[in-house]
């Protein structure tokens, strides 16, 4: 009966199809408009605003060229790009290592203080970091981490949501493997790295995407920590182009398109992991 129902393309199916097609067009429209704008000279934008006029006479790759040839402030663009890549890679790797360790410790061992620590994880998860922005900034200054990569990474590297997720995952790991490892003379960390880490591969996949995306798109904290143009990350650099006078729209718009590109490409290849990563907190909570 089910198969019959599925094959039949009913009126309801058509209605849903039309509704979602309209919705999809609306959702993709802003990105399409951005892409079109990136092909047009800034003068066009100033005269008409962002629009979807297809005018092949004025469209060119000049905006992208201005980034690659590095005229003016746009000269820093690829420096920002590589800063963002470095920070994202370091942040994600360290975050994976530490949050999986903590989550595994909380999920696999029974020890005194376990519940207290788990409660603290939940508290960190529930309190917005924006509340401690100023003292955290003061601390970063006194640790001499202002305007450094580590200043951005260290405070948020051991993140509560990934810990929570790894703990949930670790609760389902086979305890027998631990005893087997011990009998074979493995150290506790040996058991973790050699036996458990491979078993947690799906969790690592989801958290990698989640943390990489957060880091790549992170704005407020880097805005506070970073001071000099050469240290900027991509979002901070792009935001610095958004001045009320709008002096650098060419670089801004082409730069924005190039900033989305890596994440978009990753998404097209690893859709499943993105979806798992994003629903990490919700499903099991």
């Amino acid at each position: 009966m089910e198969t019959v129902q599925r094959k039949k393309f009913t009126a309801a199916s058509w209605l849903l199809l039309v509704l979602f097609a309209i919705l999809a067009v609306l959702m993709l429209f802003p990105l399409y408009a951005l892409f079109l704008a990136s092909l047009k000279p800034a003068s066009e934008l100033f005269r008409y605003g962002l629009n979807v006029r297809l005018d092949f006479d004025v469209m060119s790759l000049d905006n992208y060229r201005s980034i690659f040839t590095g005229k003016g402030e746009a000269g820093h663009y690829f420096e920002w790009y590589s800063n963002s890549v470095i920070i994202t890679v370091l942040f994600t790797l360290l975050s994976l290592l530490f949050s999986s360790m903590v989550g595994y410790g909380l999920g696999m061992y029974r020890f005194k203080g376990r519940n207290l620590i788990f409660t603290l994880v939940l508290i960190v998860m529930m309190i917005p970091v924006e509340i401690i922005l100023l003292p955290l900034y003061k601390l970063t200054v006194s640790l001499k981490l202002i305007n450094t990569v580590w200043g951005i990474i260290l405070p948020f590297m051991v993140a509560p949501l990934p810990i929570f997720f790894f703990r949930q995952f670790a609760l389902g790991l086979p305890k027998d493997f631990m005893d087997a490892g011990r009998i074979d003379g493995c150290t506790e960390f040996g058991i973790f790295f050699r036996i458990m880490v491979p078993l947690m591969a799906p969790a690592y996949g989801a958290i990698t995407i989640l943390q990489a995306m957060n880091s790549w798109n992170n704005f407020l904290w880097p805005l506070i920590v970073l001071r000099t143009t050469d240290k900027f990350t991509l979002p901070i650099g792009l935001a610095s182009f958004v001045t009320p006078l709008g002096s650098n729209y060419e670089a801004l718009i082409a730069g924005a398109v190039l900033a989305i590109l890596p994440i978009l490409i990753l998404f097209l290849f690893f859709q499943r992991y993105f979806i798992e990563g994003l629903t990490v907190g919700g499903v099991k909570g």
Partner: protein
Amino acid sequence: MQQQINREPALASKPRNRLANSQHLAPYLFVLPFIISFLLFFAYPLINAIIMSFQSVLPGEVTFVGLDNYRELWNTDFADALYNSSRYTLFTLLLLIPIPLLLAVMLNSKKMPFSNFFRSTLFIPALTSVVVAGVVFRMIFGELDGALMNSFLHLFGISSQRWLYSSELSMFALLVLASWRWIGINILYFLSALQNIPSDLYEAADIDGAGTRTKFMKITVPLLKPITVYVLTISIYGGYAMFTESYMLWAGKPSPQNIGLTIVGYIYQQGFQYFNLGFGSAIGVTLLGITLAVSMLQLILTGMFKKEE
């Protein structure tokens, strides 16, 4: 057994190794990164925020001023920020819970063609950073006649609007931006929960002759409660923590008559533009109070305290 006995002396000769092997110590070593990070980057700053909120912090000069900072909160800027953040939070809740829930139910329906394709498409805006999204929406809501929103209005014979100069219109712009980035994510949350609802519940309802609406109200909505509470929680959190969206829409400048000022925007302004760290901390502590109060209220209203888990 034999092997283990043989290994004993080897271990004893390396006390450090034995310590690392200890099953009692190991869990603490595993959770150590969190303990250090919690104490240094969370507990210490949080206590510091509370202390600083009673201080006047100037370079090289810190004085206790009692409740002065809190008294100072009684001003129109803070009232504007509180009003904007609360209004934004409320509207995002009203928009971004029922609509994604309905869309998720539709996507989950057997009658839905290309469900996976639409799921991915609606999710794509979530990949963009708020900075990029802010750039795009700042231009979409531009004041020129040719800008997207205005040319759309022209289709209905409505004249151009200066979107980012009025409280109502700019709130609308912020909400469009929020909906654009969040609908896809919230749909995913609801979808993943929907797929965990056992299908025999619906089959049983079918046998009892229940209609689509009854099934939705009596099965789907109650069973989605945990995920709805989760989405509600992160939406309240996100609503009150909103900053970058308005920062980008007004290009990092103060918005006219504070129409885009949020609580976090006010913290940023006082702390990092006026270096008023004590007062900024008082705003932060107040925000902490607000978020705690709202979460408590929400937990009580949704009855999460009744359930022992």
